[in-house]
């Protein structure tokens, strides 16, 4: 229990440190706002349109594939701890599980979801 409390305190300490630094910056720095300063930076040219435009769907695709595989990794941690108790049967089960995921991986690969270059 004491360990978890310490991690929590460390979170608070980190947050406080960051907050104090930002607060000092706001407090000590000058504040002379002007329309030019509050414009988004676009290399000196006047900003064109809103920044929140449509983005490539690839980013969402990668996020979804990541979720699937990351859950796989989350399963592997407890398995790694229990490997010696489970022995070869446990090993075979995880290899079969990996085989299932491999099918999905090959599908994703063949569909081109992992290709970020120019369209072929």
């Amino acid at each position: 229990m004491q360990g978890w409390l310490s991690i929590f305190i460390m979170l608070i300490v980190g947050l406080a440190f960051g907050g104090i630094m930002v607060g000092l910056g706001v407090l000590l720095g000058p504040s002379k706002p002007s329309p030019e300063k509050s414009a988004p930076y676009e290399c000196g040219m006047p900003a064109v349109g809103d920044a929140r435009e449509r983005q490539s769907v690839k980013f969402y695709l990668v996020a979804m594939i990541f979720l699937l595989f990351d859950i796989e990794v989350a399963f592997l941690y407890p398995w790694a701890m229990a490997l010696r108790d489970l022995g070869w049967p446990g090993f075979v089960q995880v290899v079969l599980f990996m085989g299932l995921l491999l099918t999905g991986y090959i599908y994703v690969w063949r569909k081109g979801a992992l290709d970020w270059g120019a369209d072929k």
Partner: protein
Amino acid sequence: MSFLLPPYPVIFGQIAMFLVVLLGLVHAAAGMVWVERKEAARMQQRVGPTRVGPFGLLQPFADVLKLMFKENLKPGAADTLLFYLAPLVCATTAFAAFSVVPIGPATTLLGLLDEPMKLQVADVNVAVLVVFAIASMGVYGIVLAGWASNSKYSLLGGLRSSAQMISYELSYGMSLVGVLILANSMSLTEIVDAQGASLLGIPHARWYIFLQPLGFLIFLTAGIAETNRAPFDFPEAEQELVAGYHTEYSSMTFALFFLAEYINMVTVSAVATDLFLGGWYFPFVPPSWGIGWLIFLAKVGALLFFYVWIRWTLPRYRYDQLMTFGWKILLPASVINLIATAAGVLYFGL
């Protein structure tokens, strides 16, 4: 100290560890800025900072002071709350992730304490999970910064960064499962202790890097990508995206992003040292000498030097190359490494 009530030394020790870790990380980040500039300068046949303090050692502190007195700019169309929350998220997660990393063997401070004190803020039995759980929260800060700024470069940088970090997170997380299998523990202290071995009373290296060379390579590569460092520094590819997600940040909010990046580098190096490089163990140095924490710091320092070395040696990847490398090479390699390790452990009965 036995005349004191038992909990007091523990509480003082704990508070001391908070201070050591907090100040240590801040100064490690400042030191890394100096090392980075000096090393870069030497590699380019320059001398680097020399004016502020001996060998320019006080340069990072001068930079922070300067930044503190600069105006804090915020784009007019930005989301104020998220804009200020983002650097805080980055810095907080960077600090908290280090809290479970042991920086040396338990010590009595040369007999000052009755009970040996652990050189880490929090000793939990799933330290490996905690480091990665907290450290990967840092991506929220980057995404928030990119989105809240309402600037095109920031948004692109934030998106790129999140896609890159989650892509490499997989191989990052999987590359160390081999070590977990070998050590049969998720506590960083126990993993390090599993690497200490002696033959005829002489300590020798039984580091996991020798049993897991591929795992170490994948861990380090993915770690460099996770911390957005060259040759994977796409979020801030200055020739393409100005400064990526922190384009619109100035003054101390900008400094916090920098601080978080350097602390994350230190954390990755420290975890790599604990997992693969034997932590505070070194051949021919018996633990009774009590210099374990120095050995640990030297190993972390060597890895950090390597980090900067890589940056000034390798050119940046192209973005499609980065994603292809992460998904099509690093991920299968880490799976193969994992299965081979598990089979090896079962077959040889390690």
